[in-house]
């Protein structure tokens, strides 16, 4: 029997084509692995066994008839609980959507379906993607496969942990302020936050609509690129999608911002063909991280307070049975079924948008967003890409950051890309000296330079082995 551990998309595709494995065997391999190892990892919320096996059977029939198959046909993947998947539950890891069945599928899920990719499981996250550790899930925290006492990061922590632990070949995540990149860094995998508008948000539960991006988490930039090419593009159902002309390749001049961790020395020690990283400055010279984080934590809760109005106990999800009136239904349902961080963000947003505070908070933060975006765009006029670590520290211990502000600060190096709408990819680029845990490097490009940063990431990964070490993970 062929070894199916830690397959890349291309390798799995070739094995399927050469009839060394079947799609059914591959799906069963992952489902068995999830059943065996998920009790330790708790990355998965639900498995989609029946539909996965049906789809696998169709792919196998096609191969048996000698028909050509596409690159993603028969490739098993997982998706964050934010993605609507028709007929399956979509909870956003919240009690307010417990048992909620999606009446339709998100555009990205449909696109992957059409290419023959097979959804095998829905994975855990912070409730409504509010958090940076997956501890805010209303169901259970997820553990980091490198060290089960630590968080996998968040909010797409289930996705990153699943990819690192080999529960499927890739996963879909969402990134509002770092939620694809930070968990990817903590789990030693590759995560792409595309340019804002490059991927349709239709059918994905909204957090902060002017920030939310959807992207792949995978074990290599090559796999991430294959998925990105399928999910990107205009969608008539999401009028904020942009028809970017993705430019490719060429030599690049990068600027690196050092923060005082292992990534700094690894950047200085390595040389990559066609990538000039001779300009190195301190992250303090970048001078936008603190202001960006503050503006982010006003704007995002504001958009949240508007987007989450729909969870009213009327149209879907849970409803409090203690309510006497219609107004009671709203406030008791939300009081009973929203978790602490979701309540906090809704209220901060309501406050920032309310009469008397709008100018001081919301409007001011939108103006700061303009200043931050201009600064990022200016740097990217002088340099092709910005490089900097994804996080300052590696994954922390479960329960270590009970103060919300401490949790917010884990996004310090990632949020500015969301304020500016520029693409950023996090790739594994070293291991913390004291804990041995993986650390990530971000590559940030101009809006629409998604393919360019993927090319750079692929070049780097062809010369390094940081991304290979996950294969040694034993749960």
């Amino acid at each position, binding site marked *: 029997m062929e070894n199916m551990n830690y397959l890349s998309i291309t390798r799995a595709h070739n094995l399927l084509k050469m009839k060394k494995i079947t799609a059914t065997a591959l799906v069963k391999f992952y489902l068995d692995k999830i059943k065996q190892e998920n009790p330790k990892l708790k990355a998965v919320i639900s498995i989609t066994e029946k539909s996965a096996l049906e789809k696998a059977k169709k792919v196998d029939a096609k191969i048996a008839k000698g028909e050509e198959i596409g690159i993603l046909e028969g490739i098993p993947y997982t998706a964050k609980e934010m993605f609507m998947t028709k007929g399956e539950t979509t909870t956003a890891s919240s009690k307010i959507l417990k048992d909620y069945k999606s009446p339709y599928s998100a555009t990205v899920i449909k696109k992957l379906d059409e290419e023959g990719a097979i959804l095998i499981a829905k994975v855990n996250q912070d409730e409504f993607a509010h958090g940076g550790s997956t501890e805010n899930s209303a169901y259970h925290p997820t553990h980091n496969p490198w060290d089960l006492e630590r968080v996998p990061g968040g909010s797409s922590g289930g996705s990153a942990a699943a990819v690192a632990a080999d529960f499927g070949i890739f996963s879909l995540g969402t990134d509002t302020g770092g939620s694809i990149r930070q968990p990817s860094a903590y789990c030693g995998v590759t995560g792409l936050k595309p340019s804002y508008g490059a991927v349709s948000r239709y059918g994905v539960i909204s957090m902060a609509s002017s920030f939310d991006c959807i992207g792949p988490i995978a074990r290599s930039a090559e796999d991430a690129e294959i998925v990105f090419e399928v999910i990107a593009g205009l969608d008539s159902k999401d009028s904020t999608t942009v028809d970017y002309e993705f430019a490719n390749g060429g030599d690049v001049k990068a600027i690196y911002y050092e923060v005082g961790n292992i990534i700094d020395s690894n950047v200085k020690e390595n040389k990559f063909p066609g990538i000039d990283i001779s300009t190195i400055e301190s992250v303090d010279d970048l001078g936008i991280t603190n202001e960006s984080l*503050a503006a982010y934590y006003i704007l995002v809760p504001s958009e949240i307070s508007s987007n989450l109005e729909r969870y009213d106990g*009327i149209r879907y999800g849970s409803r409090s049975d203690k309510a006497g009136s219609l107004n009671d239904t*709203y*406030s008791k349902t*939300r009081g009973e079924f929203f978790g602490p961080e979701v309540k906090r963000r809704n209220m901060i947003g309501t406050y920032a948008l309310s009469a008397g505070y709008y100018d001081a*908070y919301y409007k001011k933060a939108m103006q*700061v967003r303009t200043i931050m975006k201009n600064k990022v765009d200016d740097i990217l006029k002088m340099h092709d890409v910005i490089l900097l670590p994804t996080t300052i520290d590696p994954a922390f211990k479960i329960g270590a950051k009970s103060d919300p502000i401490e949790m917010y600060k884990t996004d310090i190096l990632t949020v500015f890309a969301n304020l500016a709408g520029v693409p950023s990819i996090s790739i594994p680029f070293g291991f913390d000296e004291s804990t041995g845990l993986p650390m990530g490097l971000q590559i940030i490009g101009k*809006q629409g330079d998604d393919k360019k940063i993927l090319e750079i990431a692929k070049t780097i990964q062809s010369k390094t082995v940081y991304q290979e070490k996950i294969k040694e993970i034993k749960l």
Partner: protein
Amino acid sequence: MSKINITEIEKVAKLSRIELDANELDKITEEFESILDFVEIIEKADTKGVEPTSQVTGLSDVWRDDVVVRSEIEPKDLISAAPEIQDGYIKVKKVL
């Protein structure tokens, strides 16, 4: 300096349609205080004459052709997602 008191938090909770118990109110008042301190840094930014940014695509007035497109979503699937239904309608508490 105290930026916010419990009466204001009660008002925000009411506006947010979130019922909180006494413990939650106390805790969230404290947390509000530290979150407002944390975001205070933007007060110092010189934003005179700066246009606010609400979106980053530069798109405006995205239109589609005025033709009826049949949705693939079944109305019954949408209705059945509600917590209480009767005869194909969503049931709610008395409004008045």
